[in-house]
């Protein structure tokens, strides 16, 4: 491995730990103030329907840390299989599960096994089961051409390997499948000091 690849691998490992720590913190202490909006306040900002939020478990709503509303244009239909990349505490997966109904299926993927457990518990509490798999969005633990829709909310920007993530989304989608994602983009190249700082990158 080259020196540059070594540095990138090392940064990625540190970043992974920081991402797990930060979003675990949001889930564990949702009343804390972060530099981003979260919880019901954020979801309402992005146009989540009141009935979605009122009927979801309080823990799933309080831990919401998305950057937009991927459901606005997802056009989910009953019976579809949906993949939620970076499913966190499960709010988006629960909303998707309601849309696809009992004949559909929602699979979440999250780096943090503890968040997977929490998402599944929230989904079960709301009567909308989902399966959460621990894994990385750069190596999605889902078979080729097996999902109808990929949703994701504020997660892909956290990856150093966005091209790989996009290729993975393409791989797991069925022919004719679609994605509806919300995420953060930057018009300018971030400075090396930001790229090299896991706390800044993770946020």
């Amino acid at each position, binding site marked *: 491995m080259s020196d540059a690849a070594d540095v990138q691998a090392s940064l990625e490992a540190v970043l992974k730990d920081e991402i797990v720590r930060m979003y675990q913190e949001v889930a564990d202490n949702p009343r804390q103030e972060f530099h981003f909006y979260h919880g019901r306040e954020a979801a309402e900002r992005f146009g989540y329907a009141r009935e979605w939020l009122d009927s979801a478990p309080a823990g799933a709503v309080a831990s919401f840390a998305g950057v937009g509303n*991927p459901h606005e244009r997802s056009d989910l239909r009953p019976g579809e299989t949906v993949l939620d990349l970076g499913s966190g505490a499960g709010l988006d997966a629960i909303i998707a599960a309601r849309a696809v109904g009992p004949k559909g299926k929602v699979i979440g993927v999250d780096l943090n096994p503890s968040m997977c457990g929490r998402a599944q518990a929230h989904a079960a509490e709301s009567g909308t089961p989902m399966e959460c798999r621990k894994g990385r969005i750069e190596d999605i633990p889902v078979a080729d051409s097996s999902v109808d829709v990929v949703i994701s909310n504020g997660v892909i920007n956290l990856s150093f390997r966005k091209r790989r993530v996009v290729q993975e989304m393409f791989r797991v989608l069925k022919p004719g499948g679609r994605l509806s994602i919300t*995420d953060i*983009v930057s018009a300018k190249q971030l400075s090396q000091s930001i790229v090299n700082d896991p706390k800044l990158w993770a946020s």
Partner: protein
Amino acid sequence: MFALLEESGFTRVRSAVVPGFRFRKTSTQNSAEAYGVKAVMMTALKPATG
């Protein structure tokens, strides 16, 4: 991201700015604006054939 989606084979790639997005802290928001950071919604299709 838009270009990555097209280069990876997705079609009908669409994007729109998320209007309600901003950082809570003014200092973070100011830094984000300096870098042109914004939240976007993107949709795309995997071709049915080919």
